[in-house]
């Protein structure tokens, strides 16, 4: 059968082109996403600063909780911390006394402008050596690395350069202070960030973790570690979504190509092929198409993976030193996935095949009665039920990490359900065409006569509209709600990122100054965004609904309060960014959680537990102009309220890049399916022309049909997107109203229409080029 399948495949290239392109795109996307996933799982970052130390001892960078799994079983789960956890100096003291340890080098680390600051004590970890000048000794002295381009005697942010090292690190700019000054600037009294142990250590001391080999790189670059974790979830979600979209598209194109080859397959049935042999033949064709497309697609996917990684690096979502892991696994998995997708598609079309009757080869019109087969109806209803369940689940998810993949899945399952039940809808659609004259009559007749033909085109169009709207408006729903809340809740007239609070407070005319530091904390294992503030009602309005904000207590958003089941007066046990556990009383519950973070904590408590305590100042100075304030605080950037709110919103570009690929994929599927459907009608169009329909009338008829499909897809896709977004908004913002940008929405529909019309018109013009008489007689 395989040889036979190959011959059919080679001869009917056009019929398979659609499925082939869809499979190829799916393979490429899955391969690229799996490369990101693998990088997340196995990616390593080579140590730079710690390269010269065989073993590093540091604090555990994870929060660990023992979860009761029921039936007496427990499991310890670990989640990465958002800030660096520091090591108590007592551990170092114990290390010094450990037998076998000859030397211990301690290190502190802190941001210093664009540099990473350390004490000269830790130079031996790399090791750094002085090329010119000498080591720093006094408080105002620094040593810079070889790349800084500074000479001995010059100034760096108010410090005098006394030496330059012989070395520089590839992905960080280093500046050394005297050991005492560095400890003061680092702001973690009695703690160090890491300790190098020479010559080696066999076991981690109590309360600390031992890092050797490439593990040292993970400790050194905690941002890479976080990027790695987000690559795992993003890569997995994207690969899954691409695969599902791929299966849906491939099933559609396969069904269409089988519908178009119905007569040929009926001939085989008449000539003595059993239904099983036909299924085997189509299965063989699918496996062949899947393998070839899979190999080519996986090859293209490797390129796509590099491109995605490069784009993420340039967007700042992935640090450059977390290199892409290249191995054969993603390509092989993509190939396997593609072949399986093709096989699934063939299996699903096979049901249709068993109904091909041999008599059809004798010229009997293939009856398309538009009735829904029971299996399809049941599957459609089951998936509708699944979609409802997913929608309910989604409306209860209040973290972005959980909600994003579920959102995609919900939109997809709704689309598949709509596709399965589509022929039901297709019978109702063409009614308004009656008013459009003879071409409208023809279009309406065709759509009514072959509802499955319309359904096969509707499926990718609906998918495109639904996915695009969902992806775009999930971002605006989050972004707009956050921005609106931030704007409404910021009472301060000016926002000064990175300015010193004490200096600004002294400026005449300044009424109130609030320091804001953003961080992420965990309650149990769940992540919450938090702001640490020196609260002042003149600068900040959180929209308190119960209680009152107290300076030494926590305030929580309504969403968080509901999720945690806590209210005013309850104690809140939380783990700060660096792993420090603390308990605070809840003094207030507020509404503007998206704009300001789920938790509002005392600034004094948190600022010592973040990597970068610089933060932002909210300044209320109603009598001062922006320029006057800028003059009074030299070197500071002064933003007004609106600018500040715009800056505060997270950058969704990463999401757009990744999900844009899936949108592009659905776009390709639309072009694919429409082109296939149109070119499969060459004969029918020829008959119409022989009956006196002009070329112009035929094109008009096809345009009307395409517009009809777009209209239906727009209604269905928008409905799916609205249901999904509504559920998403309910979970994330507490209100079921999503934020839609009308302009963007119109643009999406216009793009879909343009794509669909072009994909119909081009093959139609090609089909009209052959003489109608020839087209009618050719098989």
């Amino acid at each position, binding site marked *: 059968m395989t040889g036979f399948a190959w*011959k059919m495949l080679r001869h009917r290239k056009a019929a398979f082109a659609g499925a082939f392109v869809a499979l190829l795109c799916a393979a490429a996307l899955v391969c690229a996403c799996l490369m990101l996933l693998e990088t997340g799982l196995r990616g390593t970052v080579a140590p730079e600063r710690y390269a010269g130390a065989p073993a590093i001892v540091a604090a555990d960078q994870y929060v660990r909780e023992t979860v009761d799994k029921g039936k007496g079983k427990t499991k310890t789960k670990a989640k990465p911390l958002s800030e660096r956890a520091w090591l108590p100096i007592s551990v170092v003291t114990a290390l010094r006394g450990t037998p076998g340890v000859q030397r211990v080098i301690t290190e502190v680390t802190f941001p210093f402008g664009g540099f990473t600051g350390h004490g000269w004590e830790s130079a031996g970890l790399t090791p750094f050596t002085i090329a010119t000048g000498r080591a720093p000794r006094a408080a105002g002295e620094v040593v810079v690395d070889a790349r800084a381009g500074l000479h001995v005697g010059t100034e760096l942010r108010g410090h005098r350069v006394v030496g330059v090292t012989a070395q520089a690190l590839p992905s960080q700019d280093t500046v050394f202070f005297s050991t005492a000054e560095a400890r003061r600037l680092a702001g973690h009294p009695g703690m160090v960030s890491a300790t190098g142990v020479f010559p080696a250590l066999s076991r981690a001391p109590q309360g600390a973790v031992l890092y050797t080999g490439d593990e040292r790189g993970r400790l050194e670059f905690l941002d890479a570690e976080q990027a790695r974790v987000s690559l795992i979830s993003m890569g997995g979600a994207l690969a899954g979504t691409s695969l599902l979209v791929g299966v849906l598209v491939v099933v559609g194109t396969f069904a269409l190509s089988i519908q178009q080859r119905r007569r040929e397959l009926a001939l085989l049935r008449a000539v003595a092929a059993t239904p099983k042999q036909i299924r085997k033949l189509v299965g063989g064709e699918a496996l062949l198409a899947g393998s070839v497309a899979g190999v080519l697609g996986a090859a293209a996917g490797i390129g796509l993976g590099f491109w995605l990684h490069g784009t993420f690096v340039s967007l700042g979502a992935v640090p450059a030193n977390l290199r892409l892991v290249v191995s054969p696994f993603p390509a092989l998995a993509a190939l396997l996935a593609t072949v399986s997708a093709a096989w699934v598609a063939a299996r699903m079309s096979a049901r249709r095949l068993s109904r091909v009757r041999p008599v059809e080869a004798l010229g009997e019109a293939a009856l398309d009665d538009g009735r829904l087969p029971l299996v399809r109806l049941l599957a459609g209803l089951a998936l509708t039920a699944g979609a409802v369940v997913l929608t309910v689940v989604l409306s209860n998810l209040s973290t972005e990490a959980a909600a994003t993949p579920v959102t995609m899945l919900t939109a997809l399952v709704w689309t598949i359900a709509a596709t399965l039940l589509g022929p039901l809808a297709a019978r109702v659609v063409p009614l308004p065409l009656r008013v459009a004259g003879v071409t409208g009559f023809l279009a309406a007749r065709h759509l009514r006569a072959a509802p499955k033909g319309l359904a096969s085109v509707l499926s990718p169009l609906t998918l495109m509209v639904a996915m695009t709207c969902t992806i775009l408006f999930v971002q605006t729903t989050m972004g707009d709600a956050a921005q609106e809340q931030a704007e409404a809740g910021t009472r301060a007239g000016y926002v000064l990122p990175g300015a010193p609070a004490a200096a600004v407070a002294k400026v005449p005319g300044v009424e109130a100054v609030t320091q804001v530091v953003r961080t992420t904390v965990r309650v149990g294992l769940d992540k919450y965004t938090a702001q640490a503030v020196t609260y002042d009602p003149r600068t900040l309005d959180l929209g308190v609904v119960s209680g009152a904000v107290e300076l030494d207590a926590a305030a929580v958003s309504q969403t968080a309060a509901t999720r945690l089941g806590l209210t005013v007066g309850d104690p809140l046990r939380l783990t700060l960014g660096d792993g420090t556990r603390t308990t605070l009383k809840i003094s207030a519950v507020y509404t503007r959680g998206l704009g300001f973070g789920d938790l509002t904590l005392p600034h004094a408590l948190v600022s010592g537990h973040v990597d970068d305590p610089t933060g932002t100042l909210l300044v209320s100075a109603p009598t001062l102009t922006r320029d006057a304030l800028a003059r009074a605080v030299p070197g500071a950037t002064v933003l007004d309220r609106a600018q500040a709110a715009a800056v505060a919103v997270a950058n969704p570009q990463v999401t757009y890049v990744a999900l844009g690929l899936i949108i592009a994929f659905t776009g390709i599927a639309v072009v694919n399916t429409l082109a296939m459907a149109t070119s499969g009608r060459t004969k029918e169009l020829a008959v119409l022309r022989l009956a006196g329909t002009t070329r112009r009338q035929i094109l008009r008829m096809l345009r009307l049909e395409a517009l009809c499909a777009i209209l239906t897809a727009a209604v269905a896709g928008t409905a799916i997107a609205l249901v999904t977004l509504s559920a998403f908004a309910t979970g994330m913002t507490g209100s079921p109203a999503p934020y839609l940008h009308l302009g963007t929405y119109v643009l999406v529909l216009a793009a879909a229409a343009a794509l669909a019309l072009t994909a119909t018109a081009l093959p139609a013009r090609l089909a009209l080029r052959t003489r109608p008489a020839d087209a009618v007689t050719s098989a």
Partner: protein
Amino acid sequence: MTDVVRLEAVSKVYGKGQGAVAALREVSVGIPRGSFTAVMGPSGSGKSTFLHCAAGLDVPSSGSVRLGDTELSRLGETQLTELRRHRVGFVFQAFNLVPALNVTENVTLPLRLAGERVDRAWLGEILARVGLEDRAGHRPAELSGGQQQRVALARALVTRPEVVFGDEPTGALDTMTARQVLRLLREVVTAMGQTVVMVTHDPLAASYAETVLFLADGQIVDTMSGPTPEKVAERMTGLGAWK
């Protein structure tokens, strides 16, 4: 002579209840071995349905169809397929061939589907008989309409079937080419002892047969032996085919 195909009180009703249409009503007929039978009738007389039921392509609503000793109405779809594969050959009006396959591959298709070895000598003999021995490697698109029908006939003969059914086998051909194909069909009957049943509406085509069955309103209304085009045309006019 024994009958190869035997229809007993065969009825075929399409649809149900009020809208039911009877395409065949209680048709009983036997097709003798080694005969060349034409089935004629006006449009809608049920001649296509007759052929489908006789050939096991369709199942009658009631009555019995026997091919040799086999009762067709009791067979399942796969059994019917296997029966068609070995014991029945087909030539349709058009679209007989798989465009992806060349002449030899098309002719041997039933054998390949059955997973059987191809008898090279027999294949050569058949191709020679239909006059296509030098076209064995060509694709259907490279052949004329008459040549395509001859390939279809070769395919119908390759399994040494008990009976070959033709559904307007010359319907899409011009008169000259049609005559060649009809002469070939007749030769197959006389020289090889093959049984052929052919549905047609063309009196000229029917005149190549030994016996003509006339169908009207789903019933056999007349039988004619030793037909000529004139006699057949006259009878058809009597049936109201050409008013």
